[in-house]
C-alpha cells in the first residue's frame, strides 16, 4: 500500500457505498467505516517514522504542460490525513445511527466517502493544479452534502450559497496558482518544478520579491479565506448548518473548513515572510475571531452556536499563521488538533441531543444528564477541553497560543482579542456542553432518551483522546506536531516542541485563569450581554450576497425574456437571418457574382424531380390542412432522396428516405393533438418570411454551385479508396469512414444523439410536480 492507493480506496469506496448499504442495511456503517479506519491505521504507521523529506509518489499526467500527478506526505499532510480519516471513520459510524432506517443513507455514505477522498487529495497533492482539482471536489461534495435534504428550499439555498462562495474562491485560487507557476519559472525552476510545492521548498525559492506577488497574494487569500470562512465570507458556514449533523461535524468543523488554513500553512514557505502576508493574515484572522465569537454568544441553536465558534477558531488559526514564527506555527498545529477533537465531539453531541431530546434550542434544554448519562459525560469532557481547562489537550494548545501572542507584533491588541475570544469559547463550552445536561429538569428532559451506542461512541472516543493527549502530550509532540510545524516553515530538521501541561508560574497561566474566570462571569451575564451586542450583528456581508444574487437572477430573467421569445418561428427566423447576414454577406463581398448555371447538363429523368420539388414546396405553403402540408413536405424530402440516388450516394439516400418516413409518422402521431390550423401571421409578416426563405434558398444554391466549381483536393478520397479494403476489410467507404477511419467523430455524434434523446425524454416525461418551484 502506498499513499496513492490510500487516496484511491476512498473513491472506490464511494462507488461501492450504495451497494454495500443495500446489502448490509443497518450494519453498513460499520462495514464502510473499515475504509477510513484502514486509511487511518496506514497513516499511523508513519508516526515517528516519517522521513524528513517526506514520502512522494508521482504519476504521469499531462507531460506537455509539465504536469505530474504528484503526491507527497510530510508532517503537515500527516496531521491532516489522520484528522480526515479518523474523523471520517467516526462520522460514518455515527451517520448509521443518526439516520437509522433512512433510505437515503446509501447516498450519504457515498457522499461522505467522496468528500473524504477529495479532502485527502487536497492535503496529499504536491502539484498545484491537483490541489485545485481536489479543492473544487471538496466544494462540490460539500454542496451535495449541505443540500442532502434537497426537497427543503432552505437546504438548497444554503448549499448554493456555500458553493458560490467557496467555488468562486476556488477560481481565484486557480488564477493565483497559474501566476505562481509563472513566478517559479522566472526564478529558474523547470515547468514541472514550478507547479510543485516541494520543488519550491527544496530550491529555497520564494515569490516574495516578484512583481506579481501582490496579485498572487490577493488571489490565494481569496481562495483560502472563502474556504475557511474568514470575515467577510464567514456567513456561509452558519448557513451550512442546514446539512445533517454528521456532515456539519465532519466538513464544517473538523476538516473542510480547515482546508483554507492548510493551504496558508502549505504556502507559507512560498508566500510568507512578507509584511503584506503577515498583516493581511493577522488582520483577517483577528477580525474573524472576534466577529465569530460575538455571533456565537447571540445564537440559540446548538449547531449555530458551534458554527460561529468554529468561525472564530478558524480566525484564530489564520492569526497564528500570520504571526509566522516557529512557535506560532507549532501553536497553530496544536490548536488544529485540539479543535478538531473537541469541536467534532461537540457537533456530534449536538446531533445526539437533537436526536434524544427533539430540540437544539439551548433555552429549552437543561437537566438531560439523567436521561442521557453517557452523552452528558462526553459533552462535559469536550466542553472542558474547549474551555481550555487542564488537564485537557485544549489547555496546552491555549497556553502556547497565549505565549505566542505575547511575543508577536501588536502584542497588546492581539492578546486582548485572544483573551476576549477565549472567554467566549468558555461561554460557548458552557452553553453547549454543560448547560443542556445539568441544572433543573426541563420539559425537554422529561421525554429524552439516551441515543444508540453507535451515536455516542464517536463523541466519547474524541473526548477521551482530548483528555489523553493532555496527560501524555509527548505522544503527539515529536511524532506528529513537530514534523507538521517544520513542514509549515519549510525546514527539514524536526525539533521537539516540549508540550507540557505545566510551564511554571508565568503570564500565560495567569491569562488562562483570567479567561476561565471571565468566561464563567460572562456565562452568567450572557443574556444581557448578547442583547447589548445585538445591534452590532446585523446581517452585514450576508446581505451583500443576498442582494447580488437577487440582482443577478433578475438580470438573467430580463435577458432571457428579451432573447428567448419561446416561439419556434422566431428562433428559426433568427437563425436564418443570421445565416443571411454572415454567410450571404461574406459571399457577396468576396464574389460579387452568382455562379453560372450554364455548364450543368440535366438529364430528362432528373428534370422531372427538379420540377416536382418547387411544386411540392408551393403545395406545402398553400395547403389547406396540416395533413396535406405534411404529405407535400414528404414529397419534397423523398425527391431530395431520389437526387441522392441519381448521383450515386445510396447510403445518404437511404438515410434520407428513413428520416423522412419517421418524420411523417411522427407528424401523423401528434397531428391529432394540435389545435386546428389558422392563419396567425399578417400579410406583411408573410412577405418578410417569404423574403427570408427565398434569400436563404438562393444563398444555399449559390454555395452548392460554388463548391462544385472549385477544384477539390482528392488526396483524402484517394487515401480512403486505397486503404479501405486492405486495412479496414470493407468495401463501403462511407461506412468504413464512419466506423473506422473517423470513428471518434461517430462516437461524438451518437453521444450527442443520446443526450438529445435524454433531453426530449426528461422534458416530456419527467415533469416536476406542480408545486416544485415554490
Amino acid at each position, binding site marked *: 500500500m502506498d499513499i496513492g492507493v490510500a487516496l484511491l480506496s476512498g473513491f472506490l469506496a464511494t462507488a461501492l457505498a450504495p451497494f454495500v448499504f443495500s446489502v448490509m442495511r443497518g450494519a453498513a456503517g460499520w462495514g464502510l467505516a473499515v475504509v477510513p479506519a484502514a486509511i487511518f491505521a496506514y497513516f499511523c504507521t508513519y508516526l515517528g517514522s516519517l522521513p524528513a523529506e517526506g514520502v512522494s509518489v508521482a504519476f504521469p499526467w499531462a507531460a506537455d504542460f509539465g504536469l505530474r500527478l504528484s503526491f507527497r506526505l510530510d508532517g503537515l499532510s500527516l496531521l491532516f490525513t489522520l484528522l480526515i480519516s479518523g474523523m471520517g471513520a467516526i462520522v460514518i459510524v455515527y451517520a448509521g445511527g443518526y439516520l437509522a432506517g433512512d433510505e437515503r443513507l446509501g447516498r450519504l455514505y457515498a457522499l461522505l466517502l467522496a468528500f473524504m477522498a477529495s479532502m485527502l487529495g487536497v492535503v496529499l497533492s504536491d502539484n498545484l493544479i491537483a490541489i485545485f482539482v481536489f479543492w473544487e471536489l471538496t466544494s462540490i461534495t460539500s454542496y451535495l452534502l449541505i443540500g442532502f435534504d434537497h426537497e427543503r428550499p432552505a437546504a438548497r439555498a444554503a448549499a448554493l450559497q456555500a458553493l458560490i462562495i467557496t467555488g468562486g474562491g476556488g477560481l481565484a485560487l486557480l488564477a493565483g496558482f497559474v501566476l505562481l507557476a509563472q513566478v517559479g519559472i522566472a526564478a529558474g525552476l523547470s515547468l514541472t518544478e514550478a507547479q510543485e510545492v516541494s520543488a519550491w521548498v527544496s530550491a529555497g525559492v520564494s515569490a516574495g520579491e516578484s512583481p506579481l506577488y501582490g496579485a498572487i497574494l490577493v488571489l490565494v487569500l481569496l481562495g483560502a479565506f472563502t474556504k475557511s470562512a474568514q470575515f467577510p465570507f464567514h456567513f456561509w458556514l452558519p448557513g451550512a448548518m442546514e446539512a445533517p449533523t454528521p456532515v456539519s461535524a465532519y466538513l464544517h468543523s473538523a476538516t473542510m473548513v480547515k482546508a483554507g488554513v492548510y493551504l496558508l500553512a502549505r504556502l507559507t514557505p512560498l508566500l510568507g515572510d512578507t509584511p503584506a502576508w503577515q498583516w493581511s493574515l493577522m488582520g483577517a484572522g483577528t477580525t474573524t475571531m472576534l466577529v465569530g465569537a460575538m455571533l456565537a454568544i447571540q445564537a440559540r441553536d446548538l449547531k449555530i452556536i458551534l458554527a460561529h465558534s468554529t468561525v472564530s477558531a478558524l480566525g484564530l488559526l489564520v492569526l497564528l499563521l500570520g504571526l509566522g514564527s516557529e512557535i506560532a506555527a507549532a501553536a497553530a498545529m496544536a490548536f488544529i488538533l485540539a479543535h478538531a477533537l473537541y469541536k467534532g465531539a461537540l457537533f456530534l453531541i449536538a446531533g445526539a441531543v437533537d436526536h434524544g431530546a427533539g430540540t437544539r434550542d439551548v433555552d429549552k434544554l437543561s437537566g438531560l444528564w439523567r436521561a442521557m448519562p453517557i452523552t452528558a459525560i462526553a459533552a462535559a469532557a469536550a466542553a472542558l477541553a474547549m474551555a481550555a481547562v487542564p488537564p485537557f489537550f485544549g489547555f496546552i494548545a491555549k497556553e502556547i497560543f497565549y505565549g505566542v501572542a505575547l511575543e508577536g507584533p501588536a502584542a497588546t491588541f492581539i492578546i486582548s482579542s485572544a483573551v476576549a475570544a477565549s472567554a467566549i469559547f468558555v461561554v460557548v463550552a458552557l452553553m453547549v456542553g454543560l448547560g443542556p445536561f445539568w441544572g433543573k429538569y426541563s420539559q425537554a428532559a422529561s421525554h429524552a432518551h439516551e441515543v444508540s451506542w453507535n451515536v455516542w461512541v464517536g463523541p466519547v472516543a474524541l473526548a477521551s483522546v482530548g483528555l489523553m493527549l493532555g496527560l501524555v502530550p509527548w505522544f503527539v509532540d515529536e511524532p506528529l506536531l513537530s514534523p507538521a510545524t517544520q513542514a509549515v516553515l519549510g525546514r527539514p530538521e524536526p525539533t521537539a516542541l516540549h508540550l507540557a501541561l505545566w510551564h511554571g508560574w508565568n503570564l500565560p497561566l495567569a491569562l488562562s485563569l483570567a479567561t476561565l474566570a471571565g468566561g464563567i462571569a460572562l456565562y452568567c451575564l450572557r443574556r444581557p450581554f448578547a442583547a447589548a451586542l445585538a445591534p452590532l450583528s446585523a446581517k452585514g456581508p450576508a446581505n451583500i450576497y443576498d442582494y447580488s444574487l437577487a440582482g443577478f437572477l433578475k438580470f438573467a430573467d430580463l435577458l432571457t425574456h428579451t432573447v428567448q421569445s419561446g416561439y419556434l418561428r422566431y428562433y428559426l427566423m433568427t437563425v436564418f437571418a443570421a445565416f443571411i447576414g454572415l454567410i450571404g454577406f461574406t459571399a457577396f463581398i468576396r464574389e460579387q457574382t452568382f455562379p453560372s448555371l450554364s455548364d450543368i447538363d440535366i438529364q430528362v429523368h432528373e428534370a422531372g424531380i427538379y420540377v416536382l420539388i418547387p411544386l411540392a414546396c408551393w403545395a406545402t405553403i398553400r395547403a389547406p390542412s396540416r395533413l396535406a402540408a405534411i404529405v407535400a413536405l414528404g414529397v419534397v424530402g423523398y425527391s431530395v432522396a431520389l437526387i441522392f440516388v441519381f448521383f450515386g450516394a*445510396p*447510403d445518404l439516400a*437511404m*438515410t434520407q428516405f*428513413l*428520416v423522412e*418516413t*419517421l418524420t411523417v*409518422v*411522427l407528424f*401523423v*402521431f*401528434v397531428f391529432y*393533438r394540435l389545435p386546428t390550423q389558422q392563419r396567425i401571421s399578417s400579410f406583411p409578416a408573410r412577405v418578410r418570411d417569404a423574403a427570408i426563405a427565398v434569400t436563404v434558398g438562393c444563398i444555399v444554391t449559390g454555395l452548392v454551385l460554388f463548391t462544385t466549381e472549385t477544384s477539390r483536393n482528392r488526396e483524402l478520397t484517394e487515401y480512403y479508396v486505397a486503404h479501405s479494403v486492405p486495412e*479496414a*476489410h*470493407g*468495401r*463501403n467507404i*462511407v*461506412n*468504413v469512414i*464512419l*466506423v*473506422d477511419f473517423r*470513428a*471518434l467523430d*461517430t*462516437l461524438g455524434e*451518437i*453521444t450527442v*444523439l*443520446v443526450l*438529445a*434523446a*435524454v433531453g*426530449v*425524454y426528461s422534458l*416530456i*416525461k419527467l415533469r416536476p410536480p406542480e408545486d416544485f418551484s415554490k
Partner: protein
Amino acid sequence: MSRLILQTATRFMMPLLLLFSIFLLMRGHNLPGGGFIGGLIGASAFALYALAYDVPTAQRILRIDGHVLLAAGLIVALVVTCAPLAWDLPMLTHRYSWIELPLVGIGDLALGTPLLFDLGVYLVVLGASLTIIFSLVEE
C-alpha cells in the same frame, strides 16, 4: 377506429423489417447499409407497430425500454473505443478475426470490432428514435 388491414399487414411486416434492419447492419461494411440506417429501419418497424396498435403494445413487443437501448449502445461503442488502451494500443484500434463469412447479399463479412462498434451505433439510433417517438406520442 378499426385498423384491421393495417394491423394484419403490420404483423407480417414487422419480422421482415426487423430482419432487414439487421441485414443492413451487417452488410454496411461492404455495401450500402450500416448501423445508422439499420437502426432507423428498426425504429420505423416499431413506430409502424405503434401506429397500428398503440404505444404500450409496441413497447411490450420491444420488451426493453428505449433508454436502456440508448445506454447499452453508447456503452458498447465506448468499450470498443477504449478496449485497445488495455493492450497499450491507441484508442479505436480495430481488430479482425480470421473468419470471413461469404454471405449472400452481404459480401465477405469480416468479423471484428468495427461490426461491434456499428452495433453500438445501431442501438443508439434505435433507442434514440424510439425514445423520442414514444414519449412524444404518449404525451
